[in-house]
């Protein structure tokens, strides 16, 4: 795939999407009886399971860090050994540097929406397992964790939504297309594994996009905005950051609409008080 533009002259990506289109998102909430909240989420072929336990008393003999009076969020991100769609197997599902780091980032994303001060001396455990990996894994994990928190009935400030934007190419067609069709932003959203493998810089944004109508573009309230930028070695020039950020944010907003619909549908079909 190397050397090939991510977006064709006809404006389509290899899998048939346009630059600003997400993959199909499918959601099921309340998939486990054991946990306090759970959700299963598919973004294309990336499939993620999230479970929330708590709030409950902190385990491990209270390491003293809990005196501050706020609750603790404990996150564990793991990838199933068979999760790679490319076929190779992972040695360990968790505990390596990468998943540990992702766990940490996941905690940031969740702390941004959970009002931890409501749960003094308590702990909330969030477990996310990537069952199948096909790109944008971390974003799918954040989205699934948000849904699981909702399912657990834990009050949140907003949806915490993740989305990636990847620099496509600087071919003329793409630049033109992205301008006349979507107004702002450059790059392709929600990259799948193959697109990630091209080595282009990917910006991962986790945002609290708010209700669809509200204007977050002005950045008046970016206190809750968590931004994680990650790429494969390539550095990103400052001039390109804004375009990518806009594109990723729009992806977050679109994702939020879909998640929100899924939550409302779930609530109308399963009244949580009777589960």
């Amino acid at each position, binding site marked *: 795939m190397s050397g090939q533009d991510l977006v064709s002259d006809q404006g389509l990506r290899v899998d048939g999407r346009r630059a600003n289109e997400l993959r*199909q998102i499918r959601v099921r909430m309340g998939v486990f009886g054991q946990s306090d909240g759970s959700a299963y989420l598919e973004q294309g072929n990336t499939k993620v399971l999230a479970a929330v336990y708590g709030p409950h008393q902190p385990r491990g003999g209270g390491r003293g860090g809990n005196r501050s009076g706020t609750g603790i969020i404990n996150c564990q991100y793991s990838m199933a050994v068979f999760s790679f769609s490319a076929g190779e197997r992972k040695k360990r599902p968790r505990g390596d540097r990468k998943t540990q780091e992702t766990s940490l980032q996941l905690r940031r994303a969740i702390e941004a929406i959970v009002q931890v001060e409501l749960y003094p001396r308590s702990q909330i455990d969030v477990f996310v397992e990537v069952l199948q990996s096909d790109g944008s894994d971390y974003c799918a994990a954040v989205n699934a964790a948000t849904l699981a928190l909702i399912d657990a009935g834990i009050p949140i400030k907003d949806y915490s939504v993740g989305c990636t934007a990847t620099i496509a190419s*600087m071919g*003329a067609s793409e630049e033109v297309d992205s301008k006349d069709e979507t107004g702002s932003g450059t790059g392709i959203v929600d990259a*799948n594994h193959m697109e990630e493998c091209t080595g282009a810089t990917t910006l991962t944004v986790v945002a609290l996009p708010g209700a669809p109508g509200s204007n977050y573009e002005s950045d008046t309230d970016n206190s809750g905005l968590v931004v994680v930028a990650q790429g494969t070695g390539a550095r990103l020039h400052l001039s390109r950051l804004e375009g990518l950020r806009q594109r990723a944010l729009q992806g977050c907003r679109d994702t939020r609409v879909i998640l929100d619909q899924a939550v409302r549908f779930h609530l109308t079909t399963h009244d949580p008080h009777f589960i």
Partner: protein
Amino acid sequence: MLTTKTFFRKTKRGNILKIVREHYLRDDIWCGSNLCSICKHKSKDLVLDEDPESRSSLYPQGHYLVLDTNVVLDQIDVLEEDALCNVIILQTVLEEVRHRSSNVYKKLRDIIGDPKRKFYVFVNEHHKDTYIEREPRENVNDRNDRAIRVAAAWYQNHVNASKGARKEKQKVDVVLLTDDAANRDKAIGEGINAASMQDYVASLIDAGFLQDKLCKRNYVLEGESKTPLFPPHLTPAQIHDGIKSRKLLQGTFLASRENFLEGSVNVEGYEKFILLQGKLALNRAVDGDIVAIELLPEDQWSVPSDLVIQDEEEDPSDLLEDETELKAIKVPKNIQRTPTGVVVGIIRRKWRQYCGILQPSLVKGNVRHMFVPAERKIPRVRIETRQSENLSKQRIIVAIDSWPRNSRYPLGHFVRALGNIGDKETENEVLLLEHDIPHNRFSDAVLSFLPKLPWLITEADVTQRVDLRHIDVCSVDPPGCTDIDDALHCRELENGNLEVGVHIADVSHFIRPGTALDKEAASRGTTVYLVDKRIDMVPELLSSNLCSLRGNEERFAFSCVWEMDEKANIIDTKFHKSIIRSRQAMTYEEAQLKIDDETQQDSIAKSLRGLNSLAKKLKAKRFENGALVLASPEIRFEVDSETHDPIDVQAKKLRETNSMVEEFMLLANTSVAKKIVQDFPECSMLRRHPEPPQANFDPLVKAGRNRGFVINTASGKELATSLNEAHTEDNPYFNTMLRILATRCMMQAVYFTSGMLQPEEYFHYGLACPIYTHFTSPIRRYADIMVHRLLAVCIGADATYPNLLDKKKNHELCYNLNYRNRMAQYAGRASVALNTHLFFREKVQNEEGYVLFVRKNALQILIPKYGLEGTLYLSKKGEVSPVNFIYDEEDQSQKFEHIVFHSFDPVVVQLSLDRSNVQHEKLVFKLVKPVIPGFSIPTKSDPEMVPKSNIVPKRKTEEKPTGSEISGGKRGRRKKQKK
């Protein structure tokens, strides 16, 4: 969000791997037809005519064409003509073409990009109604054929579906063109109009010239004999198995230039080439093809025949010639035989388009003719053309299509005519094509990335750059140079040290990575200099204007500024992007005069003197380290300004200022190389010059020994010393010739990516320099642009992009740059040869020369006046001469009676042009002095030409440092051995 449906494509790679990919189908892919009222087109997507005109008698109804992949791949030369319009290119086809031939793919994309042609790309693979899944046991090809038929049928229904509402409109047909008979039959069975390209083109009005361009696959014999002449080729699967089981070998086939019945294959793991002898053994391999061969048993091995056999058959019949001449060779028992083999299959054809001339058929009115390629390694080609009268006086281009078993020659088709044989323009065109030099006009896409005029320096530019406009900078170049990429300055600092600046055109500011402009420049790799023509790497607006550091104009530069002490030690090095205003663009001669004229005391003169004295010190230091001074004969043509014919030829002069500029370019290149490797140890673009293996030096050592000199080649430094010490009283040109020989022993200097080699291997042998790169000529070398980008990142002036840091991509780029460089160099030499021939066309001239090498049957002669080299044959095959020279291999001499020829001996030769072969004019050298009755030519009456007893070249001996590869190569400075 339009994701409608998800499919899974399961591809099994190997045995275990399962790849699941999503494949979205859409309902917003439009048909591109103006006739359609269903699709919600945007105006730019409306490509196909509402009422296409039909020029075909087969399909009188207006129609759109759908092309099968094989048609695009094989008939691209027909498609490139403006004849076929309103064509639908399916994505299936586009993808297949992309995988099969990047060359055809590029051409196809160019056609699609041309709005006049009305080619519409229909993304059938993502359209909800035209996507099909592969059926069980259906192979990929069959599936794609079916997809093409489904799409064609869909179009037929779709474009006419809206017809109901607009009755008055004509129905539009869809015609599928495919050369695959099975696909065609199925299509017709499914009610789709389908035809072969051949039939369709034949049915067009004015089909004649298009028919010439049709790809020829089948050869029907006129005679009755249909017995195959050649053994069949193995199938790919058989070849694969054969290679796996080591029964077969694979390698690149190289045809012999001298003997068309002989060739060799370079097989990996074999030290020697594997010999192929005879038409049947060659079995239709064409030079460059990758072939599978079978090794013969050892008792059938042979030796290279050393014969010169040209395929000169007048009557191109289909009988294989008598190969008695070849078979007659008896292999002497004591000589080691060469492994010999036969071609059993072709793994990959490397056919390209070939230049040559038409050899019209002897039969009047015959459309079948022979084509004779200019490259002797390529066999003649059968083509069909109806315009032979017209073409017989022209140089033409032909593509090979196939080589069936029953044809003695490959089949091909006419592509285009270049112009009349012998025209300067035509010959230049041939030269460029034969050296694969991209020389088309820059496309509009490329030009669209040029800055808009008037180009002005903005406030923002000034804040981002160091303003050096107050410094007295000047440039020194060859006369007539319009692509000035370097300028210099030197001034005294308060602490007594000197500040020296080298300012290089900031090309990377204008050529942004990834743009069409950038891709074009990367593909061209270098500017090519012919004697009377320059083929730019970047469009003229940049090369001769915005990037060129012209006098008294403000320009962007990338500056390298050193602080140096009196002894030329570097105290500090700085790099920054800057704005400069060169005070004066000088020639070497002007600069030299300015330095020498002591009455001139302006700042430029002072600056030049400072630079000059530092340069001498730098040079001395380099030589101390063992840098080599090599030489190659260089010539310059005085060209008539109107006819562009060469009027006079002379060897070039070099001045102190040449070497001055060179020293600083060298210094800048080395400084930059160190800097970028520090920051990017894995992906820096560097240039290395490997040390030649000792065996390479044999001819040099022998030649030196002949004259009583010991040439020590153990290290570069020892070689340099030996060369410096080798002087003879009686022959002032001796040292230069020795250096010319030394140059011939060298390896090519090449670009490479730092991460691909160990740091010890970065060494530049000629310059005796541990690390080196090219930074100083970004206008005419793409490597320098890459280096500029890396350096800009190092100093925080610009951003990186993925490909800049991609080791593999850089490696590929280096490969291309090295290839382009080599080709540019060959083309330059060929251009000199072409002009030499033009110069000698009407002349017969006696010239003084020297013996450069002694060969078995000839002397290699160098004419210093013209820097010209040629062969003086002492004996010719089949000719009985009263004068028989005796060759002494040990002594490297040729002897006849009391006359002995050694290397470096002076001679007088007569030069004339042999024009008997139109395609290969050659300069003939004949001996005049020393007089050998029965062999030498009688001295002409022209008294001036009578040589003096001791021949002294009129010109001072000229030496050329290796370093010249750095700053050299500007107009006319391209004939270097190791560029």
